[in-house]
């Protein structure tokens, strides 16, 4: 069974493209798309995308570079028009009323430069005014947000002097000034250093109660940390959509990590080669002094792995069964999707 046809996916929802009757929209859905398609000449950037994003969730939209993530975000935020298909975002049908949509969503582009000449406070005030806030309500909300994003001390400084992390935080603040129902973020942490990433992720977690967050990213560790559900796309197509825990349980391969003394790279390569020849081993990846072994048969691996390695005489530092990560799932699913596509093309 193709991953795309898995019951967790909504790929084959019985919808006709271009229509979105009420019965197709779950009451608790913040975003619903059906057959959403965007073609640029011969390139299919988004290919019949069907998504259901529950309200109140932090939804990770994953995919390799060029998978169609940014195009999807542009379609959902009204910055682009679909070639086919339809969507409802925060209760607003796609293409019906851009002003009404703007009142219900927040958006932050990938690495936005914002208005460098403005002070942080002025940007939030502009965003608030555009969203209909004024007077004391605006002042209170701006002050509140500056505290939340930790920029109260920098509020009177021009944005041009902000660091990347500060810009991202003020960018998110301007996107949520009107308490939008859905917040769209395009790669919100990919350009940040570890400290900046931590700050932004903490900020997104704080938004969770009142806003559905839809974030595109390829930093899988961050997704695992804050997202409830994910969709993986590749070549514009939905590979799968599911809660993270469900994905990990279903698709992550059992794995072991093997660490050897430094300077034993050659010996480790020999061990890796030997393990690859075993039928119960699926793959072995070596990075410096660490090898990662994914297996087909957990029982045999548990019984045979240590004796096999010990038999080689390699000086072990560590051998442990490791928790499968979203990265494992991602590579597994994207790899399989690509293999399916190649096979179809060849046929």
């Amino acid at each position, binding site marked *: 069974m193709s991953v795309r046809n898995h019951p967790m996916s909504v790929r084959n929802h019985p919808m006709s493209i271009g229509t979105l009757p009420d019965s197709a929209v779950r009451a608790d859905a913040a975003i619903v798309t059906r057959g959403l398609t965007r073609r640029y000449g011969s390139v299919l950037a988004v290919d019949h995308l069907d998504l259901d994003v529950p309200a109140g969730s932090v939804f990770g939209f994953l995919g390799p570079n060029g998978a169609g993530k940014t195009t999807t975000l542009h379609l959902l*935020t009204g910055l682009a028009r679909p070639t086919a298909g339809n969507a409802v975002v925060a209760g607003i049908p796609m293409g019906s009323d851009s002003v009404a949509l703007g009142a219900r969503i927040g958006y932050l582009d990938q690495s936005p430069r914002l208005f460098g000449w403005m002070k942080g406070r002025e940007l939030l005030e502009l965003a608030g005014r555009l969203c209909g806030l004024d007077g004391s309500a605006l002042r209170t909300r701006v002050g509140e947000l500056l505290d939340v994003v930790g920029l109260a001390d920098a509020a009177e400084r021009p944005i041009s002097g902000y660091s990347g992390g500060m810009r991202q935080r003020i960018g998110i603040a301007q996107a949520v000034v009107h308490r939008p129902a859905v917040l769209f973020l395009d790669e919100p942490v990919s350009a940040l250093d570890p400290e900046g990433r931590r700050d932004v992720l903490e900020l997104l977690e704080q938004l969770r109660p009142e806003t559905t967050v839809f974030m595109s990213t390829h930093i899988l560790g961050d997704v695992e940390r804050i997202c409830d559900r994910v969709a993986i796309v590749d070549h514009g197509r939905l590979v799968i959509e599911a809660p993270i825990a469900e994905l990990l349980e279903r698709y992550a391969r059992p794995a072991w990590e093997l660490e050897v003394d430094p300077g034993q790279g050659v010996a480790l390569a020999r061990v890796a080669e030997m393990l690859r020849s075993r039928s119960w081993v699926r793959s072995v990846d070596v990075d410096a002094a660490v090898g990662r072994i994914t297996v087909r048969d957990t029982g045999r691996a548990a019984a045979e792995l240590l004796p096999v390695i010990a038999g080689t005489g390699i000086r072990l530092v560590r051998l442990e069964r490791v928790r499968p990560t979203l990265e494992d799932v991602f590579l597994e699913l994207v790899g399989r999707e690509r293999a399916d596509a190649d096979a179809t093309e060849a046929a």
Partner: protein
Amino acid sequence: MQGLRILLRKELAEGWRTKRTPVVVGLFVIMGMLAPLLARFTPAIVAASAGTHLADALPTPTAADAVDQFLKTTGQLGAFVAILLAMGSVAGDRERGTAALVLTKPVSRAAYLVAKLIALGALLGVATLAAGAATAAYTAVLFAPLSLPGFAAAVALVWIGLLVPAAITFLGSVLVRSPVAAAGLGFAWVIVGGVAAALPTIGADMPAALTGEARQLALGLGIGPSASAIGAPVFVTVLILGASVTIAWRAFSRQEL
């Protein structure tokens, strides 16, 4: 047009805070000051650099020379400035991602464009007015006072003339992603408009013909050889402005950002 007032305030603040407004107005004031100064002192400059025999051949400068110099400088350098101002209007915002930031708020695309057009037109208007005021003041000191209503009408025609390259560059800024390419469209218009103005059959109807009418008005000579002379270039100018803005709006309303 939801958000127009707020966006217009932002555009005006941006012009001031990025120093664009004071620099452009200052530049136009200098142009306005230099026009009568150049007219008045050209014979002295020629005499100092090429000898008195050449300077003696020059006619005695008058207020008309100051007006001519004003119209020439604002028409040429002013058009260049108008193109520079308009080239990044939309293309620059798209490049920076600030267009997406604004247009994902409850704001109409029409308000976004109109705010930019009003700010651009207002800046050119204020700058042209300042240049005109400087020329009028220096001409009064160095030659004789100009007829103020006539000169004010001339300044208005100069402003309308500058709106044409600005509007065409603005259209380019909507149609293409690069501000430099948008400027290219503006400069292409300057060349095409200049060539068209030199053609005997249609030259008198082109926006460039407004300069001749502006001269007549500034010198208190009334409107051109015939009362209808100003009608055709004004009509063509308004047509070009209207077409540029309409095409820009139609393209922008369905454009991907």
